[in-house]
């Protein structure tokens, strides 16, 4: 029998599982790409953004019918009549073009409101987590009370009180404010949680290494760790904001005519529902699928950025 040799160092072939360090974002993007629903959602959103951007141009170029001024030629017609692909509303305006212009409002509200929520939520969450103690307590009690107020009711009340005249993007301001006021709590709590957990880890090191202030350390570590959940929270806030705006328009307290909004179109369509049901169906589906698209993206992002998932 051959003489056994005491093995010196690891054999040529290393059978331990080697782990490649894949950048978090690349990894996330790969995972996101695999999620077909999320991709569909993304496609829909991109399409909507394009529509929102170019539809005013198309109207000016007379490719799209005018969405604002009434025509008397065909009123409350169904799809396909008189060259109107989706029919007309009670003032004879082309539904398709109103739908496309209406996307402006929905997308603006959905996307931009997050831009307001982000700094507010971030600031309060940071303050609460960093200072801790009485301030944290106070802020958390404050958010508890805030939670008690159902968001739709609050938005309705605020918007009813605070009305501004002017073009639609000015009218949006109180709506922005109301929606942001209701939705910042979730982000603040998330940020606070992250800050607290970082504080626990980092303060120990900071105490040992002295030097840069704990605040800098927290900020330095906050971003990479919590950017994922923050993005997911903000993404889920988008459909919520679009929904609130649509409800406001539907109830008549949102953006006032003549600017078309989807919620408004559903309300108008409901009045003539027996004559022309498609007047309700098209804007309703538009709202529904837009929200669905953002939800898919949100789900996809959440799965893609979830640190618990392995390759």
């Amino acid at each position, binding site marked *: 029998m051959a003489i056994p040799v005491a093995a010196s160092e690891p054999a040529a072939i290393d059978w331990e599982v080697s782990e490649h360090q894949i950048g978090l974002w690349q990894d996330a993007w790969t995972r996101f790409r695999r999620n077909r629903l999320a991709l569909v959602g993304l496609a829909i959103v991109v399409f909507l953004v394009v529509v929102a951007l170019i539809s005013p141009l198309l109207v000016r170029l007379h490719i799209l019918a005018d969405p604002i001024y009434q025509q008397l030629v065909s009123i409350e017609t169904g799809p396909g009549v008189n060259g109107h692909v989706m029919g007309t509303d009670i003032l004879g305006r082309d539904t398709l073009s109103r739908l496309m212009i209406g996307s402006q409002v929905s997308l603006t509200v959905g996307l931009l409101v997050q831009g307001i929520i982000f700094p507010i939520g971030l600031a309060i969450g940071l303050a609460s987590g960093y200072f801790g103690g009485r301030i944290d307590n106070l802020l958390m009690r404050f958010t508890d009370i805030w939670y008690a107020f159902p968001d*739709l009711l609050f938005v309705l*009340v605020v918007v009813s009180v605070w009305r501004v005249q002017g073009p639609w993007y000015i009218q949006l301001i109180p709506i922005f404010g109301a929606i942001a006021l209701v939705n910042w709590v979730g982000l603040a709590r998330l940020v606070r949680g992250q800050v607290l957990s970082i504080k626990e880890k980092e303060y120990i090191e900071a105490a040992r290494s002295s030097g840069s202030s704990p605040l800098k350390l927290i900020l330095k570590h906050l971003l990479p760790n919590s950017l994922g959940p923050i993005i997911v929270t903000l993404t889920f806030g988008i459909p919520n904001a679009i929904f609130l705006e649509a409800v406001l328009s539907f109830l008549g307290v949102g953006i006032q005519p003549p600017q078309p909004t989807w919620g408004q179109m559903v309300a108008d369509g409901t009045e003539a529902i027996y004559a022309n049901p498609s007047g*309700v169906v098209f804007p309703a589906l538009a709202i529904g699928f837009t929200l669905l698209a953002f939800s898919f993206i949100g789900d996809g992002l959440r799965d893609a950025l979830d640190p618990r998932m392995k390759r």
Partner: protein
Amino acid sequence: MAVIAGRPNRGALLPRRLAAVTDSRVGSLAVYVIRRVLWMIPIVFFVIVITFVLMHSAQGSPWDKAGGRQLSQVVVDNLNKKYGLDKPVFFQFLLYIWNVLHFDFGLSYQYQGKSVVQLIAEGWPYTATIGTLAFALIVPLGIGLGVLAALRQNTRVDYATMGFATFAASFPNFVIGSLMIVLFSVLMYHWTQGAFFLPAGGWGVDSHLIMPAITLALLPIAYTARLTRASTLETLRQDYIRTAWAKGLTERLVVIRHVLKNSLIPVVTTLGPTFAFLITGSVIVETVFSIPGIGRAFVVAVTSRDYPMILGTTVLFSVVIAVANLVVDILYVFIDPRVRLT
């Protein structure tokens, strides 16, 4: 009254007898409930303050009817005096609080002569009926679908139920309501020559309740189903389920006593927010289906700046939601024996 060794002696500050009571689980529960009820007061107060401030910061007075005849100044002054609007705001606020404590929410501006309480009482039965019906749909359907999907994970049943849930969750109330009206009132009427359809609104016959209740219940069902499924899947992975199987228990016992008893705990905590949703949802659903409930009254009040009505209904809603949350929290203590009532 077992006192668990090692727990901090809260009784040190209380007289002996009282300490014995508060240290027992029953006693702790009572303390907990009292504390939560007391906590409701600042919440409701805060709601009143905010709403009040908002109301009075609005431009224009409630007597500005857009598009209507402008009332003469004399009439406006008289009205202001009648409703106490000429007094300083702070005074109005105190007066209001005083009245609230006597269950007097004032008179509606919109409907001359009717008190807010009256209006609420009129709308209440409609809202309550639809809400209860919706709740009766949500609990069995939401939980049932979720459990089914979890037990048959990754099969067609699972995908179907979760797909349905995603759709239902993404389409807002008024969208679903409107589409339902189109489908079941308009189109069905056409297709069956008027023989079979669901009424689009109003009240009276039972069939009037079907669509509003379903519309209201759809989103909570979807949400509950998703949560139940996730929770049940999580529970199924636990070691104690494996122990239960290893003991030779039947599937029925394992699912009911071991899986559901654990997985439904987080679902119960969402019943509070679900209740809140039923309330805010009623606002929309009642408008879509023209139901004369409190929700629709609220919308009307908002658009016509009927301050007392707005305040009254907001207070009512907040109290109801706070009570619902309290009930859920208490229920939770009974469901999960690990919860400590400190």
